[in-house]
C-alpha cells in the first residue's frame, strides 16, 4: 500500500458534547472546502471502528493531521489506535490559551467571536497542511485567505 503524497487526510474529533468539538469540525470543513480544497480529504473518526479495513487504512494511505477539541485527544488516539501515527496534531484548547478573553458558549451555534477564532484555527490547520506537503506558505488554490472566504 503506497502513501498518497499530494493530499493530507484531516481527522477531526466528533466533539458533539462541547463547543471546542464544533470548532474542530468547522475548522476542518473550512480547510476542506475553502483553504486547501485540492489537497485535503477527511474521514469521520467513528468510521475507524464502524467501518472495515479500507477505512482503517486511511492514515497509512494519507499523511494525516488530527484536530481535537479537548485534552482527551480522541482524534489523535483513535487515529493512532486504528489507522496509523498522524503526521501532525492540533488541539483547540491549546490554541484557545492564546485568546484568554474568549469564553465559548453554545456548542452548536457559534458567536461572531467564536467564528473568528474558528477561522484562526482553520488557518493554523491549513499551515500545517502546507508543512506536511512541503509547500507551507499559501492558503487555498488561489491564495485565498480564510477571512476572505465566504461562509
Amino acid at each position, binding site marked *: 500500500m503506497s502513501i498518497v503524497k499530494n493530499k493530507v487526510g484531516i481527522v477531526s474529533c466528533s466533539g458533539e*458534547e462541547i463547543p471546542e468539538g464544533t470548532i474542530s*469540525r468547522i475548522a476542518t*470543513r*473550512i480547510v476542506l472546502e475553502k483553504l486547501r480544497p485540492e489537497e485535503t480529504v477527511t474521514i469521520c*473518526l*467513528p468510521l475507524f471502528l*464502524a*467501518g472495515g479495513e479500507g477505512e482503517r487504512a486511511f492514515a497509512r494511505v494519507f499523511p494525516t493531521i488530527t484536530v481535537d477539541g479537548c485534552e*482527551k485527544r480522541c482524534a489523535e488516539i*483513535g487515529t493512532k489506535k486504528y489507522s496509523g501515527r498522524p503526521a501532525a496534531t492540533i488541539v483547540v484548547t491549546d490554541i484557545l490559551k492564546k485568546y484568554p478573553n474568549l469564553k465559548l458558549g453554545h456548542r452548536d451555534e457559534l458567536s461572531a467571536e467564536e467564528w473568528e477564532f474558528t477561522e484562526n484555527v482553520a488557518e493554523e490547520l491549513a499551515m500545517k497542511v502546507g508543512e506536511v506537503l512541503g509547500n507551507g506558505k499559501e492558503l487555498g488554490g488561489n491564495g485565498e485567505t480564510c477571512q476572505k472566504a465566504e461562509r
Partner: protein
Amino acid sequence: MSKKNYVFVIPCSGIGKSLGTVGRKAAYKVVEELRPRPTRTTCLALLTVGDEETLKEVREHPCISIDGCPAKCAQKNIEASKGRLMKSLMVTDTLRRHKELRPEGVIELNPEGCELANLLAEEAAKIVDEILESRD
C-alpha cells in the same frame, strides 16, 4: 423522575455530509429544547477510543443513535461498546418521508435541512418518552 434516569441521544460525527449535520442538529434539539431534563448526549469519538467513563455511561443508560449515512457509525459504535441501544434512527428514513426537505451544506445547513432536523428531533423525543414510560 430520578436524575439518574436519562436517555442518551448520540448522533454520528457526520463531518463529511449534510445528513450528518442534520442528525447532530436533531440531537441538540432533543437534549436542549424538546426533552432537556431526561436526555443527554456525548461525543461519539469517546466510544471510538474506548473512554472508560463514557463506556460505563452508555452501558447503564438507554441510548438512541442518530445516523446520517448507511455506515451507521453511531449505532455500530454503541453496539461495539456494549451500550444499551434501544432505537436506531436514520436521517435518510425521515428524508424519505419528507422528500421536499433536501439538506445542503455541512458548515451551515440550509433551511430545508434545519426543518428536517426538527422533524427528526420530534421523532426522537417521542421515542425518549416511550423508553421512559416503559421504565416507570
